């Protein structure tokens, strides 16, 4: 399989990641048991006539895509691939509630039209006039990983540049309902995620886009060497075995990984396997984490990829991400091990160009 050069990134998250100079300092603490994305001034990215009708997921997605394209100096791509677990939830909910409240009468189509999961990808295609390959993945914690896997295949099949992104939004109602279902807990900086003994996550949202190229350019920041997903692995041993095989297929061992970014969510039930893995990882390399900054959502792994790119670019592991006091002497290879709900696991290998 081909590898992909990361030539541009755009990341909207609860942090200041939209500022390309931001390097995990300062860090914004979460607002209780959930995070809101820090949204940019959209006027800089989206024409006012379009902006008026767009839901937040679409705005975040289009702005994230624009940032990535600007950074890559690209005006066209050969493919647009988006990933989202819940899609344009705000528009879906708006249409749903209007329908329920008005007994199926007096409805207008705008929010229905924008409720389809592929709205972000198709809006980007419309704006870029991109008639080429357009895909939207909607599989829980694999939504973003699937976009990367697809992009790597497209490079093997002859495409030269691909825009990929992960997008998630929440609404006040959705936050409230998930809180009622006891899915959240308030963030406590005194308890490290990997030591948590209670269930609950901090629900979050965001959009991270990447312009990927088959060839290295002067703007290339890192490469994606490979991606693998694991569905419901039975134990941490299974994950470790699969991980060894994955690294082996890229000619690497765990000892050659400089930083391992782990997707601890602070939910004791979801983090079981990762907790068991942590000592194995720390035997060979430096472990770090990211969801205390991004919060948890289906495509949080897109924030992790953005983070990995930053670490390689700056050749430094900021303290806020570290799990122990150990520092990597250099950062050539970053491995992301993510998990979502303890069901969807993935490995993403990111390397220095």
């Amino acid at each position, binding site marked *: *399989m081909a590898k992909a050069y990361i030539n541009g990134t755009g990341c909207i998250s609860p942090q200041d990641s939209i500022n390309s100079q931001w390097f995990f300092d300062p860090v914004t603490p979460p607002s209780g048991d959930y995070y809101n994305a820090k949204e940019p001034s959209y006027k800089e990215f989206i024409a006012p006539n379009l902006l008026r009708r767009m839901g937040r997921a679409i705005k975040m997605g289009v702005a994230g895509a624009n940032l990535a394209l600007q950074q890559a100096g690209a005006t066209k791509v050969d493919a*647009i691939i988006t990933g989202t*677990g*819940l*899609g344009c939830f705000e528009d*879906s909910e708006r*249409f*749903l*509630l209007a*329908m*329920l409240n008005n*007994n*199926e*009468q007096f*409805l*207008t*189509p705008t929010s*229905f*039209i*924008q*409720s*389809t*999961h*592929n*709205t972000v*990808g*198709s*809006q980007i*295609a*419309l704006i*870029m*006039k*991109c*008639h*080429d*390959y*357009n*895909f*939207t*993945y*909607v*599989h*829980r914690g694999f939504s973003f990983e*699937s976009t990367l*896997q*697809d992009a790597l*295949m497209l490079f*093997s*099949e002859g495409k030269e540049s691909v825009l990929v992104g992960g997008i998630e939004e929440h609404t006040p*109602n959705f936050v*409230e*309902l998930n809180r*009622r*279902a006891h*899915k959240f807990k308030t963030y406590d900086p005194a308890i490290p995620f990997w030591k948590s003994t209670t269930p609950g996550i901090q629900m979050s949202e965001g959009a991270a886009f990447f312009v990927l190229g088959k060839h290295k350019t002067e703007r290339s920041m890192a490469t994606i060497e490979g991606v693998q*997903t694991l*569905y*419901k692995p039975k134990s941490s041993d299974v994950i470790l075995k699969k991980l060894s095989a994955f690294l082996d297929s890229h000619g690497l061992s765990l000892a050659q990984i400089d930083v391992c970014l782990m997707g601890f969510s602070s939910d004791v039930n979801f983090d079981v396997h990762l907790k068991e893995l942590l000592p194995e990882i720390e035997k060979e390399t430096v472990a770090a984490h990211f969801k205390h900054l991004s919060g948890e959502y*289906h495509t949080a792994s897109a924030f992790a990829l953005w983070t990995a790119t930053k670490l390689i670019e700056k050749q430094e592991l900021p303290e806020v991400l570290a799990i122990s006091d150990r520092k990597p002497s250099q950062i050539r290879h970053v491995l992301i091990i993510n998990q979502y709900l303890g*069901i969807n696991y993935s490995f993403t290998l990111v390397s220095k160009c």
Partner: protein
Amino acid sequence: MSQRIYITGLGVISAIGNNVPETLASLTQSKTGIGKIHHLTTRYKDEFLAGEIKLSNEQLADLVNDHNPDLNRNSYIAMLAAKEAVQNSGIDTADGLRTGVISSTTVAGMGKTELYYKELFEKDDHLSVLDTHDCGDSTERIADFLGNVDYVTTISTACSSAANAIMLGCRMIKNGLLDRAVVGGVDALSKFTFNGFNTLMILDKEWSKPFDENRKGLNLGEAAAFLVIEGEEALKKRNGKALAEIVGYANTNDAYHQTASSPEGYGAQMAIEQALQMSGLKPGDIDYINMHGTGTPNNDLSEGTATRAVFGDKVPRFSSTKAFTGHTLAAAAAIEAVISVLSIQNDMIFPNLNFTTPIAGLDLVPETSLVKTPVNTVLSNSFGFGGNCSSLIFKKVSA
């Protein structure tokens, strides 16, 4: 990289049958599944028609033999169709080869969410719909139902979704990531989609008339359809039997409008041309086109124009089978892939029901009754909101 991809199993449940044999019987008898609404709760029950699966949720639960309250209609029908496809193919997911489940859906768990959403704010009884609302839910249910699945993902590109699931399965096998895959799509009817299409004013209150000058819109349907596809190496290993080969596919974007297709059908034309190019077939080699043919004024004109642009005055025999099943959204391309394979297997072209008058200026006349003729190659089109255009080409396996 150039491994050939074969279809080895079919599974389907829709308004025209709960399995493949029933579906074939309805198709050969010109028996539509579209009628009065029985299962969907909507104020428009007596005003519109729909292509409903003729089983209640309770009956579906009996069929999958699982009364887990977290299962919804989408999951039930997806599990049934996927299981039929696997049984039909004869694959054993526990044999050590890598099996993927690649599904697609647009409505996902909305059919259940809409029943309880308002009460969720006050009562705890149905909060679990939050866990089954998303698109990945039914896919993981299929994977767990089949067992020993190595890979899962889900696609949602509106009404072209399942074509893209089929395409992704082919590509993953060719790229060496999987040996075989269960690919397809599912969409149960929901009040949400029904009202959505109603606000767009593209629902016909009578039977839809694809490619007719006087077509007024589509009838919604519900379905799940899955195909087992295998790389030639995996197929050889188990000495399995191929039903048809997938020789071409393409995905393009019309990039014209969020919901409407461009009048000239630019995206559609590109998808057809690129799929042909990949297959190595010439336009004249296609024996039958299973059209997207929703029956909306916009789609059929756009698709018809694209068809003329590619095939000129030698348009192959064609029909839209949506007047049988209704438009089943994410499942449409999968059910039409199943119908395309049935067409190849039985050397039959199934009729385009309710057609009388060709669209002015296009003069395209579909088959209106069952045609028995050799069918070696079928082109199947699927287009969706967001400009997503996908075409697939199926070919008879030479003896």
